[in-house]
């Protein structure tokens, strides 16, 4: 899963438009697109594996 790094705000269409940060609700497709343009500002996080204990 991709996410915008903490303390980073991305303005893909300039500051006249809304910026995105790690609280923005963005689809993974949008995050992939942002990663192609701002590779240093997007990070991949590994989903924690859930184990079910009986």
């Amino acid at each position, binding site marked *: 899963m991709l996410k915008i790094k903490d303390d980073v705000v991305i303005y893909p269409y300039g500051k006249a438009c*809304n910026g995105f940060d790690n609280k923005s609700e963005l689809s993974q497709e*949008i995050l992939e697109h942002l990663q192609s343009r701002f590779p240093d500002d997007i990070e991949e996080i590994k989903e924690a594996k859930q184990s079910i204990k009986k």
Partner: protein
Amino acid sequence: MGLSLTISDIRGKAYEPILEELLFENKTISEALVSFEGDVKNESIFTENTNAVSMQAFASGAPTSGGTFTLVDTIVTPTKVMFYNEFDPNALRPSRFKRSMRPGAWEIASTEFERVVLATYGKEVSLDAESKWWTGITSATKTAIAALTPGTGQTAVGAAEQTWAAAQTATLFDGVVAKMIYNNGALGTRVKVAGTTISSTNINAEYAKAYAALPAVVLAQTQKPFIYAPYSHKQLINIFNVSATYRDLFAVDINADKYFYNGIEIKFVPLPENTMIVALPSNLIWATDLVSDLNKMEINKIANNREDMFVKHIFTIAAHVARQSTNVLYLG
């Protein structure tokens, strides 16, 4: 009250001109960069026609019908909007504006305030309308675009298009870009070009992508298309040309303030960064009741027994994009 004052009691001489905010001119209207459809009180029907012909072998007997006439109507309903602001001219009495008030305690109207401040406010209204005509998007359209399944093909919404929609603040009506992405309840049939962040080093390559995507038939028309680009591209193009080794790749006439890419004139409009449109101006339609409504403001007392005043603009506005499949939308 919509009057924010940081004023000094006028004692000495006031520098004569008021230093107005620097504003772009609404060239979409003043230079007619697109088409205008006035007299749209409520609804207007735009009809698009495409035909198909079918050559067939001659027969002396009964011929078989071939070909089709296709007519598609689109109903465009402009949104009625207004700007309304109240202010108390009495608050201007200690300021420079008292010089242009007539003698008498009743007289608090300043001609200088009306001539400069309210005129600039009127320009702001015009620019706001222009900006939203290009980039406006309703919250319903934002939601609809976000719900589409993205893909790289022309028949799927682009991830960049979804990103663009998510980056806009919702407005009261859909502007040109929104109409190109989502039109009449479905994905628009624009020619989409996946772009990137445009800089002074890659601007040539990015314009080439948009140019190459333009259907050739558009360049064969009597009316020539424009490249509609953000204001910042003027600087990026100039810097790029300075860096070009052998010749200017963008033709520029600095004196006439004209910019071209491969013979197509570039028009700088209030589009967001990394956003471009290549289209015939007749395809982009500004529908309104009366174009000059934008320049009409009413200034009056709020009530006869009050001294505070209001300034009000009312107009209708809609963006319609015709011949969608011939228009290029570049989004970084």
